């Protein structure tokens, strides 16, 4: 019987033009989707069509072309919001997930976090969910605290409870899925416990939305940020927020479109979500992400998740064959997304990635924008393979072979 992963997602690869590329006569094995995913021709064509046929200023022009572009932009928002089950009016387009998190840090944080308060994040956060809070805490005199990693590289709800019980936490901000460890955090439970303790919750879903079914109404966090470029789309981000909070918040960026009326001294704000979409929006990117979401929806997120799980299971089975390898992240596949970070004794991750490249296998090497996590793991850097719908078990085999060859070059 064919493995589960090969059956449902067969021929998906052919949709991704860049995966036809060859390097040194070898077809590219792209194992870096946690950094950025490739785009199917359906997305490229949708963006091309929008620009060739319907592009005009959105929300402004009275002419038909402008109506068409506005409709396409808003239809993309509706499709994307419905995909994650959230109100489109509370789904704000941002530049990326980083900007979405900064929006909350500035527009909500500066009003609600002060001296003596605490912002609680975790040791497995991406820099985008660390640095905005460091800046907020530095400015306000609040304290930044970290939930620690358990031995299985997960978070402990007991630790969360004990920190919340001290009564100073104003905000809990955690990743839905770790970009290094792959850990799937129990974000619904974290959001529930945060709310019960009077804290607001923010979830960084950049690694979750692309690879598993995500129902934001079920998770019920106060804010949920993610980015399109890891979800087969272009670089555009989303911030989904609870209406009461977004309504009460001050704007983040001031400018055109976010206003209702501008007087000489002061202004009033546009309705949601436009209050947080100052300036000319990236309409082509929004349309492209709409097409990416349509593509993922057609594949079915349950099948996408099953595929990621199968590849991760296969990688965790085969990679230990490489001598001197250390794997990071939870061993339990129910708690783990499609990413495997690893280190090899006697060979720096940079050199691992360089030698994998000789075999046209693209893996990431470095700190993965998670330097505090690297220190927790006791390493300066790791190599990382991450998967998406277009990857196959065969590419995991090529990775294992490339690592064996790399060890030979290093005479290990």
């Amino acid at each position: 019987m064919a493995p589960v992963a090969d059956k449902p997602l067969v021929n998906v690869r052919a949709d991704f033009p860049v995966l036809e590329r060859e390097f040194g006569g070898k077809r590219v094995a792209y194992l870096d989707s946690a950094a950025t995913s490739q785009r199917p021709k359906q997305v490229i064509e949708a963006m091309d069509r929008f620009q060739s046929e319907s592009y005009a200023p959105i929300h402004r022009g009275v002419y038909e072309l402008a109506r068409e572009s506005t409709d396409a932009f808003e239809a993309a928002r509706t499709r994307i919001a419905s995909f994650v089950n959230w109100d489109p009016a509370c789904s704000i387009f941002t530049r990326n997930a980083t900007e979405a998190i900064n929006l909350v840090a500035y527009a909500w944080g500066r009003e609600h976090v002060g001296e003596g308060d605490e912002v609680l994040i975790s040791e497995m956060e991406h820099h985008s969910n660390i640095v905005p809070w460091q800046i907020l805490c530095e400015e306000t005199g609040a304290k930044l605290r970290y939930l620690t990693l358990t031995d299985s590289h997960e978070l402990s709800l007991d630790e969360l409870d004990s920190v919340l019980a001290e009564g100073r936490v104003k905000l809990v901000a955690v990743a839905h899925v770790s970009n290094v460890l792959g850990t799937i955090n129990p974000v619904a439970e974290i959001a529930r416990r945060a709310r019960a303790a009077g804290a607001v919750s923010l979830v960084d879903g950049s690694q979750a939305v692309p690879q598993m079914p995500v129902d934001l109404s079920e998770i019920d966090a106060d804010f949920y940020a993610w980015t399109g470029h890891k979800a087969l789309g272009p670089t555009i981000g989303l911030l989904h927020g609870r209406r009461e909070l977004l309504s009460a918040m001050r704007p983040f960026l001031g400018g055109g479109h976010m206003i209702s009326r501008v007087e000489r001294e002061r202004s009033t704000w546009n309705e949601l979500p436009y209050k947080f979409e100052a300036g000319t929006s990236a309409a082509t990117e929004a349309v492209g992400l709409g097409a990416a979401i349509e593509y993922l929806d057609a594949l079915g997120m349950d099948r996408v998740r099953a595929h990621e799980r199968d590849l991760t299971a296969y990688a965790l089975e085969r990679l230990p064959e490489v001598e001197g390898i250390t794997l990071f992240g939870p061993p339990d596949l129910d708690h783990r997304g499609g990413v495997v970070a690893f280190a090899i004794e006697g060979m720096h991750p940079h050199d691992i990635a360089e030698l994998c490249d000789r075999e046209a296998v693209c893996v990431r090497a470095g700190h993965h924008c998670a330097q505090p996590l690297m220190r927790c793991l006791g390493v300066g850097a790791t190599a990382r393979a991450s998967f998406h719908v277009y990857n196959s078990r065969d590419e995991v085999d090529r990775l294992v072979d490339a690592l064996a060859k790399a060890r030979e070059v290093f005479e290990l």
Partner: protein
Amino acid sequence: MDALYRDFILDHYKNPRNFGELSPHDLDFHDHNPLCGDELGVHIVVEDGKVKDLRFHGQGCAISQAAASITSDELIGMPVEEIQELGADWVIEQLGIDISPTRRKCALLSLKVMRGATTGDASWPE
């Protein structure tokens, strides 16, 4: 044989020369490559305006470690003033291999740290 990971590069990576710490030392500097997080520090003892002895320490890839190790013997005995004249080409010539743009900072980290210690200028060598 691999074009980048030549025997002498791997030898310097696995058995780096002049690595460790010097106590006491006259000059020191520590820096990192923000792209990959690799770190390198240096301790230098100066006598009569020349580098009498030095030790690098830190962690990094084969290219950054080998560059530090290979250049260290050349740097010992060099007048401190001359170090600020050294540029990227000098390091790459010492290494004797082609360095791709993506590995350039790996190769230059040790010189960056040396210049930081001796001149206070911690910019990337050009």
